């Protein structure tokens, strides 16, 4: 046990501000957090009871009833225990039309596939053999490379070209490794007047750097020469080819009107395969910024959650509330990037 998560205290303080908001079926854990040894240790289950297990490097994203091998005060569960997702965690790629394969080009082609049909069905469901809630055994290959076993995240997945509304009751979607690694994850906002709101991302890289991208301030990060994150007036994007370098991110909205009023609309997040996640953008006054979605990279898979956060704040407050405290600020609305 070598470290303590720094992104947890805000959750306690948020609960203190509105204790009545605690999910009835998912009581908030005790205030004293169990130390975590790894930033990748993430409990997305709805904890039935705080578990003061000292630590574990394993990950528990199991169903609510499963005991957590590592207690965490980080509660990313739905306000009420979600029903079992209809899609489960097993990705059925066979039920959707595959992307049209490109024709092997002629110049250099030795065509091995004349007798084969393009993949159109089956055989691609994610093998998630580890029992739900079980600690992740670490296997070591003959050449000494450690590897975590596959977990059943127990979270809803999404198919290519599927559209999913992320409700308060089912706010989480876990992408597959391929969905998490191909193309770009693009977030946009659909509102009557797009100039009234801009999107930004605050992020933490896998080596612990925190920063943000926001139109007009810092449009590419963390390294502008080889950016992972981009922000323009039309939305934000994450280069998923660089997903191994990402640990987590927060998508937020900043109203541009002097009144800091957010327009009502919808936030959409799309993947390379055409999947589209949607969450409402609730109209109303803000203190300068509104958190919309969070995403964590869990064993190479992006787990995205619509926050449905009833609170707004200054951008600095929002970042701090979600655990991004390693950012310096010129003023509560302007980070030093």
């Amino acid at each position: 046990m070598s470290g303590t998560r720094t992104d947890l205290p805000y959750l306690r303080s948020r609960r203190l501000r509105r204790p009545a908001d605690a999910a009835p079926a998912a009581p908030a854990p005790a205030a004293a957090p169990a130390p975590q040894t790894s930033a990748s240790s993430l409990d997305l289950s709805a904890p039935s009871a705080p578990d003061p297990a000292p630590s574990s490097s394993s990950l528990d994203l199991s169903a609510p009833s499963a005991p957590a091998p590592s207690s965490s005060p980080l509660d990313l569960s739905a306000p009420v225990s979600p029903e079992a997702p209809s899609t489960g965690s097993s990705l059925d790629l066979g039920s959707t039309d595959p992307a049209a394969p490109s024709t092997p080009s002629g110049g250099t082609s030795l065509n091995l596939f004349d007798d084969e049909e393009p993949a159109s069905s089956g055989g691609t469901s994610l093998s998630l053999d580890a029992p739900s809630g079980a600690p992740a055994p670490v296997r070591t290959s003959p050449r000494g490379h450690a590897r975590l076993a596959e977990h059943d995240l127990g979270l809803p997945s999404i198919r290519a070209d599927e559209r999913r509304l992320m409700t308060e009751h089912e706010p989480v979607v876990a992408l597959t490794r391929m969905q998490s690694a191909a193309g770009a994850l693009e977030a946009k906002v659909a509102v009557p007047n797009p100039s009234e709101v801009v999107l930004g991302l605050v992020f933490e890289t896998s080596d612990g750097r925190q920063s943000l991208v926001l139109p007009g301030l810092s449009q590419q990060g963390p390294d502008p020469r080889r950016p992972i994150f981009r922000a323009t007036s039309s939305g934000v994007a994450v280069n998923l080819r660089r997903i191994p370098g990402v640990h987590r991110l927060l998508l937020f909205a900043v109203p541009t009107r002097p009144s800091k009023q957010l327009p009502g609309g919808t936030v959409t997040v799309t993947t390379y395969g055409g999947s589209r996640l949607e969450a409402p953008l609730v109209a109303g006054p803000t203190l300068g910024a509104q958190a919309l979605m969070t995403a964590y990279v869990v064993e190479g898979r992006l787990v995205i959650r619509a926050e449905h956060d009833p609170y707004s704040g200054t951008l600095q407050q929002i970042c701090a509330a979600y655990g991004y405290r390693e950012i310096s600020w010129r003023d509560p609305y302007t980070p030093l990037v």
Partner: protein
Amino acid sequence: MAVSLSKGGNISLAKAAPGMTNAVVGLGWDPRTTDGAPFDLDASVLLLADTGKVRSDADFVFYNNLTGDNGSVQHMGDNRTGEGEGDDEEVHVALNQVSADVQRIVVVASIDQADARGQNFGQVADAYIRVYDGDDPHNTDKGVRFDLGEDASTETALIFGELYRNGGEWKFRAIAQGFAGGLASVITQFGLQVG
């Protein structure tokens, strides 16, 4: 000297590298100098059953899934630029520990964001794939190599070659098959979907 194959050729690994159990598949390339965006080539591996398809998503070993088949196949990580000496990317295969139902191990290289950057393998020179003994890496008499030449033009992904079972032994085949649709177009051929 290591055996040099031409396109379409194949050879028994027991003959090319007697006694080899830990094979290293090394890939190399040299992007030609351009004024545009830098090249980022990625190697990846597909483990295929006798159906010619992967058994599951886990059989696609790439930059976001560096191990496959319970660790018998290990991707050694990404070299972004292709600069420097030696192999640009490597995949280690413990031949004796590959599951019996894996019949082929297909090795692919693709260019990241090729369409957006207007890049293709026509702008890549000196591409090769080689297989050598990971336990005897400096023995130049063992192993097999395939230089892909300059045939590629508009392709953005290439199957360099494959290891495959044949009559109880592992063989290597030089392929150099190009795809214009990038990595996605390759993996869909083998039962995977991107989205």
